[in-house]
């Protein structure tokens, strides 16, 4: 008898979940699952932040301060309109320094596993197999954080579909994106994850760094992400200095010869 009740209950629950999914209803306050940009190139973003690529168009010119412009000029990227040959660039990620944050999201954002615990939301990235912790226990940002590659992040649900993350304390050695946009230790960021339905969400990301930029700017504007099957195998894609040395020896260094 108890087994029968259990069986029937399970059937009902399964039917309920199936119905929700069929109507595309999103679960409330839940981002659990493996997500990837709908357009792969949006996440890979070789030319810099998707909403502000370094494509030379005036509307994509960032609002640099004098200090920001000076910092930009030190970064020699092998992508974008001012790209240099691979052997001449100084991209810290190309020597396998950690990409850090926000670059982990603004470059090489591939399949990303979101997991929620009672106290935090975890993001497990494809690139470098790195994880990121977002506290959701109500705490605020630290006032005078030590800089870290991935900064310090706190998040909260502003409604049942909208998860807002604040980050500070990032390391100024990292690039903002693959085009070599710089940031200072004063950078603060806001990410808004807005779930549209069962299989879709949008990510908007705003950077505010008064030392290097005269005003906040939107790096991602409602970039669409799709939910992948829970059995998705996230491929291994890790930076290896010895592999890069081999690539440079066999290939990149020879392309740069005059």
């Amino acid at each position: 008898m108890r087994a029968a009740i259990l069986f029937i209950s399970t059937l009902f629950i399964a039917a309920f979940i199936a119905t929700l999914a069929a109507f595309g209803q999103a679960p409330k306050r839940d981002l659990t699952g493996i997500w990837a940009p709908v357009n792969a190139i949006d996440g890979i973003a070789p030319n810099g932040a998707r909403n502000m690529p370094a494509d030379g168009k005036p509307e994509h010119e960032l609002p640099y301060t004098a200090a920001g412009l000076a910092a930009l000029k030190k970064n020699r990227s092998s992508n974008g309109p001012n790209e240099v040959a691979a052997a001449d660039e100084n991209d810290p990620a190309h020597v396998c320094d950690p990409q850090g944050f926000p670059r982990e999201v603004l470059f090489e954002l591939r399949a990303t596993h979101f997991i929620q615990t009672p106290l935090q939301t975890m993001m497990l990235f494809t690139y470098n197999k790195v994880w990121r912790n977002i506290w959701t226990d109500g705490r605020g940002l630290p006032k005078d954080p030590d800089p870290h590659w991935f900064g310090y992040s706190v998040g909260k649900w502003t409604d049942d579909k909208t998860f807002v993350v604040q980050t500070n304390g990032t390391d100024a050695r990292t690039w903002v994106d693959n085009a070599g946009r710089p940031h200072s230790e004063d950078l603060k960021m806001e990410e808004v994850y807005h779930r549209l339905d069962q299989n879709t969400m949008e990510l908007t990301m705003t950077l505010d760094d008064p030392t290097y930029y005269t005003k906040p700017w939107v790096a991602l504007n409602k970039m669409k992400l799709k939910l992948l099957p829970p059995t998705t195998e996230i491929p291994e894609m890790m930076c290896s200095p010895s592999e890069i040395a081999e690539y440079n020896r066999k290939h990149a260094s020879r392309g740069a010869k005059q």
Partner: protein
Amino acid sequence: MKKGFGIWVFSTWMMTFSLVIPGELLAHHGSAIYDNGKAVVVKGVVTEWTWSNPHCLLEFDVKDAKGNSVHWVAEVSNPPDMTARGWTRKMFKPGDEVDLTLVAAKNGEPIGRIVRVVVNGKTYAGMGAVPGEAKQ
């Protein structure tokens, strides 16, 4: 291109627009070193296939008319991206004959980026579009 390699070159210059299509530019590194307007077509014999980050590398020897061998090294993207295009770690082995369409370095070094390859009767798409061909 250095002269005398004896490789079969179909040289079609595209003057009006760049052929680096954003949706195909998945590489970490840019294309500044390449002459992206010219397709280089060669037959080679594989010596090594490195399935590795940051970019996979195919090494092969190309014989010229006099029988001299030139050693080429050509890249594609990283293993996850190439897996998505049907490439595998074991698709080439030393001794395999390959028909390659490349873009090659501006400076004449025998290095390039594979746009298309035929091995063991199968055709694989590499990186970017073939210069001179309409995009499919």
